[in-house]
C-alpha cells in the first residue's frame, strides 16, 4: 500500500482515512486534488486535512503562519478568528474593510478585531482576491435564499456553532466571517452575490498571526450556490514557525 504524500513527501494528518478523503472518485467527475504545501518556510507544527463539510479549529501563536490549501479548487473555507486570550475580541469585517480601505482581501490585508487591533496579516495569496462580505451559510438562512425544502441541509453556521461550543462559545460569538476561495463581486449599483470561483486545486493563502489567535473554519457544505463548485472538497491546514 502506498502512502499518500504531497510533492515534498509529507503525509498530512486527517481525522478520517486520508486515502478515502483524497480519493477523487468520491467527488464530482473530473475533480483534481492537489495537496500543495506550506506557503511559508519553517518548521511544520501542524498539518491536517479537513474532510469536506467538516468544521476545524486551532490556536495559531503570534508569529506563526497558517497556510490554507484549496485542495480540490474553489472550496469555500468560512473562517473566524479570535484573540485566543480573550475571545470577546474577535474578527471584525467592518474594522478590516474600513482599516484597509478595501472590501476585498488580498496580500497585505490586515485582519482586524472588533477593537481595531491586528489579529493576523495575509502574507501570501494565490488567487486574485478573497471574500469577507458574503458571510456564512446556515440552516436558517438557506430557507431564505433557496426555500424551505433545504431545512435538513447542514451549513457553515452549524459548523461554527459546533466548533465554537468546544471553547465555551455560542451564538453570541459567531460574527460575520471571511470566506477563503469564495468569489463575491460587488457591481457598480451595489448588486453583489456569490459567483463562480477564481481559485483552483492547490491554490493557497497564508496568514501570519499578529497575536495568539483561535481560528475556526467551516469547510463549507453548501450545495445550492457556486461557493464550492457544487462539489465540496477537502482543505489542508498547515501551521509553520520560522526557526
Amino acid at each position: 500500500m502506498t502512502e499518500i504524500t504531497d510533492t515534498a513527501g509529507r503525509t498530512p494528518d486527517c481525522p478520517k482515512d486520508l486515502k478515502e478523503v483524497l480519493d477523487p472518485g468520491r467527488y464530482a467527475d473530473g475533480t483534481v486534488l492537489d495537496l500543495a504545501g506550506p506557503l511559508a518556510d519553517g518548521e511544520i507544527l501542524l498539518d491536517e486535512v479537513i474532510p469536506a463539510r467538516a468544521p476545524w479549529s486551532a490556536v495559531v501563536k503570534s508569529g506563526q503562519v497558517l497556510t490554507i490549501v484549496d485542495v480540490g479548487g474553489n472550496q469555500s473555507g468560512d473562517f473566524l478568528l479570535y484573540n485566543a486570550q480573550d475571545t470577546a475580541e474577535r474578527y471584525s469585517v467592518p474594522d478590516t474593510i474600513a482599516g484597509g480601505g478595501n472590501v476585498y482581501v488580498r496580500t497585505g490585508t490586515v485582519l482586524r478585531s472588533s477593537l481595531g487591533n491586528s489579529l493576523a496579516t495575509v502574507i501570501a495569496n494565490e488567487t486574485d482576491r478573497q471574500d469577507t462580505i458574503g458571510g456564512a451559510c446556515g440552516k436558517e438562512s438557506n430557507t431564505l435564499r433557496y426555500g424551505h425544502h433545504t431545512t435538513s441541509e447542514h451549513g457553515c453556521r452549524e459548523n461554527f456553532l459546533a466548533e465554537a461550543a468546544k471553547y465555551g462559545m455560542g451564538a453570541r460569538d459567531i460574527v460575520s466571517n471571511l470566506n477563503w476561495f469564495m468569489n463575491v463581486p460587488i457591481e457598480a449599483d451595489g448588486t453583489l452575490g456569490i459567483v463562480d470561483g477564481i481559485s483552483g486545486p492547490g491554490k493557497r493563502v497564508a496568514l501570519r498571526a499578529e497575536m495568539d489567535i483561535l481560528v475556526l473554519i467551516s469547510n463549507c457544505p453548501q450545495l445550492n450556490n457556486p461557493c464550492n463548485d457544487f462539489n465540496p472538497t477537502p482543505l489542508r491546514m498547515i501551521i509553520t514557525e520560522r526557526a
Partner: protein
Amino acid sequence: MATVADQHETDTVGNARADARAQGGKAAAAMAYRPASSTPYPPPGVDADTLTWAETVAGGNYAHKVLARGTRVRLEDVTGEACAHVLAYNALEPWERLNVADTVKISWQAYLGTGHPLLSGDGRVLATIVSDDSGRHDALCGTSSARANQARYGDSAPQGPSPSGRELLTLAAAKHGLAPRDLPPSISFFKGVRVEPDGGLTWTGSAGPGKAVELLAELPLILLIANVPHPVDPRPAYTSGLLRVHAWRSRPTAPGDAWWDAAPEARRAYLNAADYCAARGL
C-alpha cells in the same frame, strides 16, 4: 471669577433638594421628550398620541429602546451631520441579532435603501427600511473603534470629546444586559460609502439636513443607536450633529404589502418572522 457653584445654594439638604428640583422642566437641544407625545417635533402625518419614543440624540451620544413588533421608527439627520450607527436584536432572544452579511448577501445588494430588509442570522427579518430620502448609508464599514478614534481624534472615551461608536454601543448594550461579545458589525445611516471596481471605498458623505429614514420593527426589538462620525469620514475634526428619533405604533409587514412580495428571499424572511411570532403568541 463666577463658577457654576455660584448658581446653586446647596449648603443644607433642604436647599440641595430645592436646588435639584428647580432644575426640572428645563429644555436642552438634545433630550428625551416624555411623554413621547409632548415632542416639539412630531413627525408629519403621525398622530402624536401613538408616539412611543421621542428623543433628540446629541452628536457623540447614544440612545436605545425596546420596541414592540409593528413599531415604526423615524431617524432624522437634523443638521446633515448625524450618522446613526444601528444594532437591532430580537428582544425575546437577543442572541438573534442583526447580521450584516446576511442583510446584504441575501438581498443581493450591498447598499441600503427603501425596502431593504434588515436580517438576523436566524433567517428572519428584524426590521424593514420602509422610507428613505437620504440614500447615503453604509453596511460595510461598521462603526468606529477606540483604537481608531484615539489615532484620529486623540480620544475615544464616552466622557471625552470624541467618543467611538463601539464604546457608546457597549454602554447602550449593557443597559439591556448585553456584553461586548453581543456587539456584531453595525450598519449606519446618513453617511454614504461606495465601492469601486477594485474594491476601494469612496466617501459620498451626507445628503444634507432634514433627511430621514424609517424602520419598521418586524419582531420585538432592542434597538441601539450611536450617533458618531462614520469611520471613514475624511474630515479631520470630529463632526457629529443632532439625530432625532421618533417611534410610533404601526403594524408589521403583512401579506399584500409591497415589501412582502418584493423579492422571494424577503418574502421567506417575513414568513419566518411571522411563523416565529405566531408560535410565541405575539
